[in-house]
């Protein structure tokens, strides 16, 4: 019986496996191969010489990489802090109201990210919604709120909010109420319940939410371009430039491989620390 089910499982997984091999693994292999090609070639049939990596190290690409990772880290921390209360409410307090919040948050995903960011540009720019009104009403204006690092982080937090909120709510819903009550009964303050019970038991949700937000934010491009202007160049921007304007596929590939390795390593480390079966609902 179990063997038949196992075979059915493999069979059912086949379409996804095929799609993943074609759309995910194959391009990755191509990118990996291009990254070791000589500079500015457009074929993988050259003698590998790793020169793209030498260029990568000799020029200041590490700055873009660090900016991306740093902003992703800060936005993930902020996302965790602001999502926790709402996620807790959704999982434990709001009951039916949770559905309304869920729909409201999901609806934001129906509008393209770029359009939403342009909305913020119109709101925050000089002469935009905020500064324009202020100047019209008081006669005193300022330079607008765009083109700095905090506004990029704000954009990342804004765009990736659902990717933190929902896994977190799922994680928090796995905390047994009686464990919280027992901890309180045994003398724990609210803070101690949070540190000793809530956070450890919601860990799978925290890890999934943080990884999703961090990975997406580290590879994000639109926020820094639209809201940040030329304040900082993020690594995704460098990759795009290398492939398009720079016409240097091996360099773009090498940058991608470095980014993928760092993020992939982090993801594997994070996932290995928590029991994902629990949050995915698998019975043991």
């Amino acid at each position: 019986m179990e063997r038949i089910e196992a075979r059915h499982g493999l069979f059912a997984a086949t379409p996804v496996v095929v799609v993943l091999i074609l759309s995910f693994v194959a391009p990755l292999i191509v990118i990996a191969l291009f990254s070791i090609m000589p500079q500015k070639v457009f074929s993988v049939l050259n003698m590998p010489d790793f020169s793209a990596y030498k260029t990568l190290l000799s020029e200041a690409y590490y700055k873009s990489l660090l900016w991306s990772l740093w902003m992703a880290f800060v936005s993930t921390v902020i996302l965790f802090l602001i999502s926790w209360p709402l996620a807790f409410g959704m999982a434990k307090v709001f009951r039916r109201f949770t559905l309304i919040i869920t729909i409201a948050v999901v609806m934001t995903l129906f509008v393209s990210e770029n359009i939403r960011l342009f909305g913020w540009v119109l709101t925050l720019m000089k002469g935009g919604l905020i500064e324009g009104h202020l100047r019209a009403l008081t006669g005193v204006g300022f330079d607008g709120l765009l083109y700095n690092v905090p506004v990029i982080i704000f954009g990342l937090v804004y765009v990736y909010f659902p990717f933190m909120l929902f896994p977190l709510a799922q994680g928090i819903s796995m905390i047994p109420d009686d464990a919280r009550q027992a901890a309180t009964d045994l003398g724990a303050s609210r803070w101690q319940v949070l540190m000793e019970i809530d956070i450890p038991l919601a860990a799978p949700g925290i890890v999934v939410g943080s990884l999703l937000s961090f990975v997406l934010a580290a590879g994000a491009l639109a926020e820094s371009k639209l809201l940040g202007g030329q304040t900082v160049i993020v690594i995704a921007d460098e990759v795009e430039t290398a492939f398009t304007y720079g016409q240097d596929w091996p360099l773009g590939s090498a940058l991608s491989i470095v980014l993928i390795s760092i993020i992939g390593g982090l993801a594997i480390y994070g996932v290995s620390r928590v029991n994902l079966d629990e949050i995915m609902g698998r019975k043991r």
Partner: protein
Amino acid sequence: MSTEPVLRLENITKKFGNFTALHGIDLDIPEGEFLTIVGPSGSGKTTLIRILVGMDEPTDGAIWLRGQRIERMPANKRPTCMVFQSLALFPHRTVGQNIEFPLKIRGVKLAERKARAMELLDLLHLPQDYYTKRITQCSGGERQRVALARALAFDPEILFFDEPLSALDYRLRKTLEKELKDLHHRTGKTFVYITHSLEEAMVMSDRIAIMKEGRFEQIDVADQIYARPVSNFVARFMGEVNLFEIEGAANNTLHGHGVEVHINGEAADLGIKLDQGKRGTLMVRPEFVQFMEVGATSDFVVHGIMREEYALGSRMQYDIEAADGSRLTVEKLREDRFLGQVGDKVVLGWDVEHAHLIEET
């Protein structure tokens, strides 16, 4: 009472909207007592214990713990704690960490915590190497002991129990009931236990409080509740029972309703008395009903037919149909079993010292 009670409840009332769950409960619990609150589901016992541990606030009334008013004090400030029905162990912590939790919360140092946890493992007959075991590796009975150890590590003034044994199988439950009673003796703590199982209450408690519809129906020692229940509800709740409606008749005699109850001698002589026209219920437990020999006599007599025989292990139980069609239950030790057959006519009798009158209020 010579000493002040450790816990005193005054007029504890709880309303949920229009529904009143608790109707002004008054209760004194002396130091070191094992009190069990028994009631069917919906009787308000869970509401009461939630108020007692501080997980809920009463609508009205006062709780005094050694003279200090605590009914509005949050659970984490109260010097009491509870063993939950689900046990509520922390699944992400080891056995040792679970037991040490209340000490860690108070900032006790690790070495000291560990020493105390080891003592508690010993006290609850758990091997010391369980200290590093995961909760998920423990059996149901072991988890029970860990939950108890954790509660004892808190060193509560009063230890509350919310039906912690209800999920266990029969044999393990019996073992743990006795262990709990033993633990009560050894620790000298005040235990307040709630359950819907009367058997559990009888085995363990010093006193039993029977709860019904948000009120205490009777609070007494197990023997008294068993032999002298104040109401039909308590009589029925405390196991198998035969109840007969009776009425006070002229000359201080009693008149039986429903079943034919022959009363030999004057009612006044029997010490059971009902004013003329007043109704009551006569109770006799199944083990006190005798099968009468021909010509023998007894204070109360019922004629009937043997309908069924059930083996209950050490005892036999008989189902007897009385002349008017109502049913009686009789229990005998196996060695005293009824020697006739199903369908035989039988005469049942019992003496007044085994009968109890429940007066209608």
